């Protein structure tokens, strides 16, 4: 072992001890990729990017808003919207309650207004922790309400997506949210509104094939899976394994489907620069 390695290893050890003193009460979460363990506060401070292997972890909607917006500028809107369980689907009600408890959210979408470098924006974030960020009637309704709000108030609209697609438990009602959100976004854009769609891991199925693909500008996080049909479905169809990197943000960029890839920590600055050119 080189002397350098020994020093860096000791540095890591010291750092861990310091963190333990500071955060001893916090929950520890291991990086699913490199298995290194960090306190929840460390994850939060580092925008859910693994400090050792730089893997991107899912970001809770509330934290995403905090990373993007000016401090304390966020005001939540349409918080009261919840699903009516239209199919009366067996077990769904309980699943919703468990997810509400787990995330502290009513459903998978957080909507509101806030400021980026003092510029007011309408912002929405899908939270992948809530039933995989799937889009049912509550998510669809909130997206439409936010879009109509942005239209009325003449605000740029920014939506961060992270979703497994349409919400199965609401059947065709969920499919209709694709039509509903696309309709609202189209009207907003036709009235001159700026819609910036931000795709994060994963953005798939009915979300990818509706409003999320309709951004005037489409940004994506590095490595994000963005697709209509998921890799497993395609592998079953074609009977072979998919090449490395297929349906990842870099692949979509190469195939002309997104405008650019933005590192998580650069998102606020990039959005701010774009907004400055849309006065």
């Amino acid at each position, binding site marked *: 072992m080189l002397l350098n390695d020994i020093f860096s290893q000791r540095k890591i050890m010291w750092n861990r001890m310091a963190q333990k003193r500071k955060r001893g009460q916090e929950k520890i979460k291991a990086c699913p990729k490199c298995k290194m363990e960090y306190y929840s506060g460390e994850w939060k401070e580092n925008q859910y990017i693994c400090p050792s292997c730089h893997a991107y972890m899912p970001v809770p909607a509330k934290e995403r808003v905090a990373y993007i917006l000016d401090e304390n500028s966020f005001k939540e809107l349409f918080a009261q919207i919840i699903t*009516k369980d*239209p*199919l009366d*689907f*067996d077990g769904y009600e309980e699943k919703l309650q468990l997810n509400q408890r787990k995330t502290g959210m009513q459903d998978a979408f957080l909507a509101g207004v806030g400021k980026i470098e003092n510029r007011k924006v309408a912002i929405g974030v899908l939270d992948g922790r809530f039933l995989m960020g799937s889009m049912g*009637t509550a998510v*669809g*309704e909130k997206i*439409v309400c936010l879009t109509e709000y942005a239209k009325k108030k003449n605000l740029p609209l920014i939506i961060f997506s992270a979703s497994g697609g*349409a919400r*199965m*438990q609401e*059947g*065709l*009602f*969920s*499919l*209709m*949210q*694709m*039509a*509903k959100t*696309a*309709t*609202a*976004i*189209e*009207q907003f854009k*036709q009235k001159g509104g700026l819609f910036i769609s931000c795709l994060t891991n994963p953005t798939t*199925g*009915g979300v*990818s*094939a*509706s*409003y*999320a*693909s*309709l951004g005037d500008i489409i940004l994506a996080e590095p490595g994000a899976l*963005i*697709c*209509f*049909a998921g890799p497993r*479905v*395609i592998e079953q*169809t*074609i009977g072979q394994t*998919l090449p490395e990197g*297929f*349906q990842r943000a870099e*692949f979509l960029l190469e*195939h*002309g*489907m997104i405008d650019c890839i933005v590192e998580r920590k650069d998102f606020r600055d990039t959005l701010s620069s774009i907004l400055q050119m849309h006065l």
Partner: protein
Amino acid sequence: MQTASSYEKVLLARSKDRPGIYDYIRTLFDGFIEFHGDRLYRDDPSIVGGIAMFHDIPVTVIGHHKGKTTEEQIAYNFGMTSPEGYRKARRLMVQAEKFGRPVITFIDTPGAYPGMEAESNGQSNAIAENLAFMSAMQTPSIAIITGEGSSGGALALAVSDRVWMLENAVYSILSPEGFASILYKDAKRASEASDAMKLTAQDLKQFGLIDAIIPEGKKMFLALDSMLLRELNRLMKMNKTALVEARYQKFREIDHMND
């Protein structure tokens, strides 16, 4: 209320004996001229489109093509559309809007094609662009789900002023087999899934998610002909702003319909 179970309807909706897109075109329209291609990459044969006369009204007709024999099914990819097909449909709708022709779509698909090339060419983008264009199109449109209306691949032709289903058609978020394998981790429980999914015309009419059911049987084409004539005349009388606004509200209010 239902004679056939939900899953029997799924199987019925998939039956090769049901009329296909060319049967509808031959029976309901005159002088159909088929148009091809998306002007970007290729012609997707799983979508058929063109112009025709409906009584004395020039219309644009677009529909999925599944094929009946095995050779046909392979040639038309079993009605599973690629981005090029949705883009062809959109191109024909842009053309219809320009010349003020109503658009009539016939929907019968197991879903958008889940293939590598389809993904590389922007399946999500193609479907999303269709939803957006149809939602704001300044010419009337009527969508008829004739067999299997599955997933975003069906919806991509169905953001219309009127959405109808044949009596034994089904319309769903994905196939009952797919649904069962996701939610029950067992594709064999498709029959159970189709009950829970509420995908029959009767269920969906009750929810207000579709506007009308077309009775099947000997006089189906006759019924379809009168319904199309009546509703097209109604829709064509509306001014463009009112038409687009009504369509906006139709999809805007979708989950309040069963309040």
